[in-house]
Each structure stands twice: as structure tokens, then as C-alpha cells.
């Protein structure tokens, strides 16, 4: 009964009333007020749908049971049409559709109007990781192996400026009811304001290949104080204090090499495991062989389709260009591979 009353309050008081407790059972946790506004609209739609369903299917069930055939000679009346009735059942749905259209438009406009004072973060999608670049220079990457790397302050509008390195991706945070495709060759944007601290799931929702379903990330919402502390001490700001191998490790994660390769074990993922690779002999699909030296590793990064390691024929590795990874950076990665004996 309380649920029913709650539903009626949504129906009657309209736009902003919410029955959060009820909504959260059929929708993800609400990360802010916008989420609960979307849920109110959804609940209105659900209730309206349920009522129409009961009317239509209830009517159908009632008629088929009541007018079940009694004999083969049953007489049926000739009822061809009824203009009044037909007008009513066209016009009433039309009004409901226009109402939900306007309601949906209102919320959509709210979600798509970027605030001026937002905290901006660059997001880059690539197969199969999300990269977040803060203006302070802090840079974090979420690939399937590492989650909850993306940290934002609570109660502060966040604007994500997004693009993709390779194919289409889509950035979806269910808790904030927002989603936007991420497109190579141009920028799209998304904004939200988290009103609760905690961790919230991020999904890629545009199909992008083998590991599409592992292109996950989490956003961690913290207090402003904690956020600033996190940013000050983040290791990505201190590359100069790292050894070359440490920088290489940092890059293999940032450039999403780790999405497909194990570096600290020789177990295969999408591509071969790379522990102990340096200086070993490699066998290729075409039968040829080579020693895995620095030149070979550089070629495998810039021209991955040139040689396929035996057993990996046709596995399409993304090609990295010098603008993605400079020659200097490649040498850090080589140092990292060397260090994993």
C-alpha cells in the first residue's frame, strides 16, 4: 500500500517527486539528484505501461473467456467501427506520449547543457581501457586489471571531454544515468555532479571487439580534501623520480598494453605473455625465427602486423604510432621488459 501511495505521488505531483527506495530496486543506486529525476520519469512510464497493459490484455483475456465459442453455428454481431471510441483511443495515447516526450526532453536538456564552471577532465577510450588526463598533469588508466583509478571530488560539476584512439566506445555510468559515445577523430562531452561519496561502475556500451565486456572502470567519488591530496601525491606526476623500467611499467598500463599482454608472467592473454622475452628466440607463423632484441620489440610496437608469433596468427594488435609512443618511451618499455627476467 505504501508503495502504491508512493507511485501515486509520483503520478500526481509530477516532475520532481521521487520514490527512491522503490526505484533503487529496479535501477542502479542513485549517485545524484538527476538520477532520481530520471527514475521518477521511468516509474511514471512503468506505471502508465502497466495500466495500459492491464487494460489491453485484461480486456483481451476477458473477451476470449467470455465469448468462447459454444457451437459452430454461433452468430456474431456485425460491428464495423465506432468513430467516437476510435478517436478516444487514438487521442488519449497521443496525449500521454506528448507528455512523456516533453518530460524526457526537459531532463535531456538538463543533462546535455554543460555548466560553465565545471572541473574538466580529458577521457580517451582505446581498445580496451579508459584513460583520464587531469589538467594538473595527473594521468590514470583503467584497464580490466586495474579498477577505481578515476577519482573525482564530490559536489563539483565534472565535465568529461572525450575522444577515442581507435574505434567507437561509449562511456556509461549507470549511477548517474548518463551515457555518451566516444568517437575517433572528434570530441564529445558529458557532465555530471556526484552527490554521494563512494565507488561507481563505468561500462563501455559501444561494441569495440574482443574485450568489449572487460572495458570496465570505476569512478571513486571522494571529498575535495581527499581529492586534492590524491592529486598531489599521484605517481604520474613524478616520472622524473622513477627508474626507466618503472616508467616503462607505468606506460604499459597507460597505453593499455596490459589489456592484452601479461608482462610479469608468460601466460598468454589476447597476445603472448612477455616475461623473460628479451634476448629469447621467437618463432613466427610463417616458420621464420628471430631473436627478441630491442629492434624486434620496437617493430612489434610500431608494426605489429609484420610478424605474428606462432599461435597468434591474425590476432589484430593495435598499431602504435610515434605520436602515441615516442621512441624514447619505447625504450622505457624495453627496459621494463628486460627487467622481467
Amino acid at each position, binding site marked *: 500500500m505504501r508503495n502504491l501511495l508512493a507511485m501515486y505521488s509520483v503520478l500526481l505531483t509530477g516532475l520532481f517527486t521521487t520514490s527512491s527506495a522503490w526505484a533503487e530496486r529496479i535501477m542502479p543506486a542513485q549517485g545524484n539528484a538527476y538520477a532520481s529525476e530520471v527514475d521518477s520519469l521511468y516509474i511514471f512510464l512503468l506505471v502508465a505501461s502497466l495500466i495500459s497493459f492491464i487494460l489491453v490484455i485484461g480486456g483481451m483475456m476477458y473477451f476470449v473467456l467470455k465469448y468462447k465459442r459454444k457451437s459452430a453455428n454461433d452468430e456474431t454481431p456485425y460491428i464495423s467501427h465506432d468513430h467516437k471510441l476510435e478517436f478516444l483511443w487514438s487521442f488519449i495515447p497521443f496525449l500521454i506520449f506528448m507528455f512523456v516526450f516533453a518530460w524526457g526532453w526537459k531532463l535531456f536538456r538538463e543533462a546535455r547543457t554543460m555548466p560553465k564552471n565545471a572541473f574538466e577532465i580529458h577521457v580517451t577510450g582505446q581498445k580496451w581501457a579508459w584513460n583520464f588526463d587531469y589538467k594538473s598533469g595527473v594521468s590514470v588508466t583503467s584497464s580490466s586489471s586495474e579498477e577505481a583509478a578515476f577519482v573525482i571530488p564530490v559536489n563539483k560539476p565534472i565535465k568529461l571531454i572525450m575522444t577515442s584512439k581507435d574505434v567507437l566506445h561509449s562511456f556509461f555510468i549507470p549511477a548517474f544515468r548518463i551515457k555518451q559515445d566516444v568517437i575517433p577523430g572528434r570530441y564529445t562531452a558529458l557532465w555530471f555532479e556526484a552527490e554521494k561519496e563512494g565507488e561507481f561502475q563505468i561500462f563501455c556500451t559501444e561494441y569495440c571487439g*574482443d574485450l568489449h565486456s572487460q572495458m570496465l572502470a570505476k569512478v571513486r567519488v571522494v571529498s575535495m580534501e581527499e581529492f586534492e591530496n590524491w592529486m598531489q601525491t599521484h605517481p604520474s606526476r613524478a616520472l622524473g623520480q622513477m627508474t626507466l623500467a618503472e616508467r616503462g611499467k607505468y606506460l604499459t598500463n597507460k597505453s593499455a598494453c596490459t589489456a592484452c599482454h601479461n608482462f610479469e608472467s608468460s601466460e598468454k592473454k589476447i597476445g603472448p605473455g612477455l616475461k623473460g622475452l628479451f634476448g629469447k628466440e621467437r618463432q613466427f607463423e610463417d616458420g621464420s625465427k628471430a631473436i627478441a632484441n630491442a629492434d624486434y620489440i620496437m617493430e612489434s610496437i610500431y608494426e605489429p602486423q609484420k610478424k605474428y608469433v606462432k599461435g597468434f596468427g591474425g590476432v589484430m594488435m593495435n598499431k602504435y604510432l610515434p605520436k602515441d609512443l615516442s621512441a624514447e618511451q619505447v625504450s622505457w618499455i624495453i627496459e621494463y621488459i628486460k627487467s622481467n627476467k
Partner: protein
Amino acid sequence: MSSTPGKNYLNEKSGLWSWLTTLDHKRIGIMYMISVLSFFFIGGVFAMLMRLELFAPGALFEGNTYNQMMTYHGTIMTFMVIIPGVPAFIGNFVLPLLLGAKDVAFPRVNLMSWYCLMVGAAISFLTLFFGGVDTGWTFYTPYSIQTNGTVLMVLGAFVMGFSSILTGLNFIVTVHKLRAPGMDFFKMPLMVWALYSTAIIQVLATPVLAITLLLLASEKLLGVGVFDPALGGDPVLFQHFFWFYSHPAVYIMILPAMGIISELLTTFSKKTIFGYRAIAFSSVGIAAVSFFVWGHHMFVSGQSELAGVIFSFITMLVGVPTAIKTFNWVATLYKGSIEFRSPMLYALGFIFLFTIGGVTGIILATLATDVHFHDTYFVVAHFHYVMVGGTLMAITGGIFYWFPKMFGKMYSEFWAQMSFLFVFSGFNITFFPQFILGATGMPRRYHQYLPEFTSLNQISSIGSWTIGIGFLIALGVIIHGLLKGEKAPKNPWGGLTLEWTADSPPIHENFETTPVVTAGPYEYGR
């Protein structure tokens, strides 16, 4: 023209060659039936394997294998089953019979369209020998450009598209020129209106798909930059092209199914249709508006916000004629004499499932809710409710309805009803949980999922086995009926449309003498 007693279209000539070169619309219809049912079986096996993988992710397949199965399931079911399913298969068999005609207007073109489907399908299946395709049936760029098998798959879809265009052209001319004397447009059965509206979409929309696929192939083979940003193209442009065809195509799939439902409901309630003109015009209305809603697939694609608002608005307008049809069907049952035969069960099941598909369609047409539901399992559930719960239920009902006419034999009513029971319940067990999965955030095209989605996924997989059993029973009913069925009378259900005045099975050119029409198609109670 009189015919030899005992001769009909099935036994008039014999041998495989007589079938492969036949110009008889009924024989071509049966060839479509065999092809479509075989494709449905293959597509269904892919679906079962996908649900099996999702029962325990990682146990069976790797990501790439799953993605290929997802792609073949989608491509086969849309291009080879649902699109040719009603117009080309059932439409071919019944359209001339419903019109009182001897055949379609262009019998040779009709045969050619069957060959187009088969050649296109063969080309598509060839991709399996070239590493397979894993782009999903939507072929979104730039991913599809980077994959090897895409061009071949796209070529297959291109050739199959011509099957669709030719069938549409043929049906438009047939409806205009070959109606029996006395049958004006408003004396045509509603199935004819539905096929006519569908044919218009087929002729106008399918060429756009062909153009899109050609552009995609020229980009891949010749390096012309159209969609690939690396070549200066725009990947979102592909989506506009693709949905400009594929949204109207959704109506190619559902409109003729709605036509079947109008036929089944009137016959098994022995009652004239309520609001004949409203249903007829709503078919044409849906066909017309269907060209202006494609952008509702793209609310989060990066198209302009204004475009999103306009597409949301127009999409709401499609809801109105769709609602009208549903209300008219239910009103037709009022004071009828309702007989629960298996085709009728499928028709009632259609209304049940299609209503759920319809109301969730409105939820998806609403901008703010769609942003959350887009590309989640909510969408998967919605379009399966419409395409399987709607179209496939109608096709199955249609097969059981016209089976006696097609083959002159009856089938086991009990087992046909059992098949309905399994398909209907299994369908709801499979797809209803997917609404909840999607609403709580599970994206589509995932071969692995977070632990919180496990139990609903497993329920869904169990449901899929139930559907599988249901369709296998239906197949058994058909085969058993063909082999052992009792002889069917001319008019086993008491239908009033013209096909029931022809023999079961009909003679070569359908009617002994051309029928003359003096009344509407459903004049029960007059």
C-alpha cells in the same frame, strides 16, 4: 481453365529441377519456407550457444568466438529469417490467393528474388571460412573497416537486399493490377494492406542499405574516406545511413506480421474486423512515418541534441497507429465466437508480447530514459519482444493457419498447442529478466558480466532452452503433418477470404474460375 482432377501445384510436375525453375508463386513460397526455416534453425543454434555461454561466462567460448556468434545470430535472423519471413515466404504463398489472382505480376522476377536471397546468404556464410565476422549485425564503422570478413558479409547483405527490393516491387504491382473483379482497395484483406505497405518500404528503403554497403566496401577496398576518421571520414555518418534503412526495416519485419494477426483474429472469432479502415490506414501511416525516426537509435551517438529531440517527437507519433491497431484487435474479440485453435493462440500470444514490446518502445523513445537504457539489455529485451514475440509468433501462427492450404493436410492440434505453450512461456522467462538486467546497467554484446548479473542471466538461459524445445515441437508438428496428416478440407477454419475457396492444396493457377468479389473480406454476421 479447368484442370485434371487430383492434380495440384505440388504434384503437377515433379523432380528437383521443376522446383528450381518454377514460376508458381506457391512453389516459390514453399522454397522460401524451406530456406527461411533452415536459416532460422542455424540462427537459433547460435542463440542457444550464446545463452549457454552466458549461463557460465568463460566456460565455453572466448570473447572473439562469442562476438562472432552474436554477429551471425543477428545477421541471419534479420536478413535471412525475419525480413524474408513474412513477405517473401508467407506473402508469396498467400498474396495472389488473397487477391483471387493466378500468380504475382512478375513470376520470373519472383523466382529471381529467391535466388538473390540464396546467393546472398551463401556469400554471407562464406565469411565463416575467412576467419568470420565479429562486428555485430550493425557493422558500425570504423570497427567494421578494420575487420577482414566484413566486405564479404556486406556483399551478402547487399545481394539479399535485392531479393527484398524485387519482392516489394512485385507485390506493389500485383496489388494494383491483379485484384479479382470487384475487389476495390477497401475490400482487400488486411494482410494485403500490410504486405502492400511493407512493399513500399522495401522498395524505398533497401536501396539506401545497398548504397551504404557499397560505400563501406569502397572504403575498405579502395581506401575512399567516407566513414573512417583515419581517412577523413565520419563514423557517425555510417550510423545515419545504416538506420535510415534499418529502422524502416523494423517495419518490414513487423507490418506484415500485423497483417497475419488481423486474418487470424477474424477467422477464429468469426467476427468482422473492428475498424477496418483504421487498421488499413495505420499500416500505411506507420510505413510513411517509419522513414523519419531513424535518429532514435542515435540519441547518445554524438548527433546534435536538437536532432535527438525531433526524432524522439516523431517516434512518439509512430506509437499512435500502433496503439490503434492493438485496440482494434481487442475490440474485434468483443462478442465474437472465439475458438482456441493453435493459430489463434499464437495470435493472442502476439498481442500479449507485442503490447509489452510496444510500451517499452515508448520508454526507449523518451529521451532521458533512453540515454540510460541505450545499448543495455533493456534494448535487447525490447526488440526481441517485438521481433520474436511479435513477428516470429505471427509467422508461426501463420504457418499453422495456412498449413492445410499449403499442403492439403492437417497437423496435430494438440502438439501445435504444446509448441505455443513452450514458446510463449519460454519467451517470457528468457526475455523479461533482460529488462531488469538492462535497467540495472548490464550492457549488451557482453560475453562476460559482473557477478551481480548472474542469477537473472541464468534464468534467461534456462528460458532459452524452453523456447528451443517449443520451436522443435513446432518443427515436429510440421514434419509429422506433412508425412502423416489427415487430408485437409478446402476451408478447415471457416475463413471468408478468397484463399479458402481454392482447393487444398490449390491447383496450378489457384482458382478454377476467377472469383468475383462483391463484399468485404470479413463479412461475418451479415
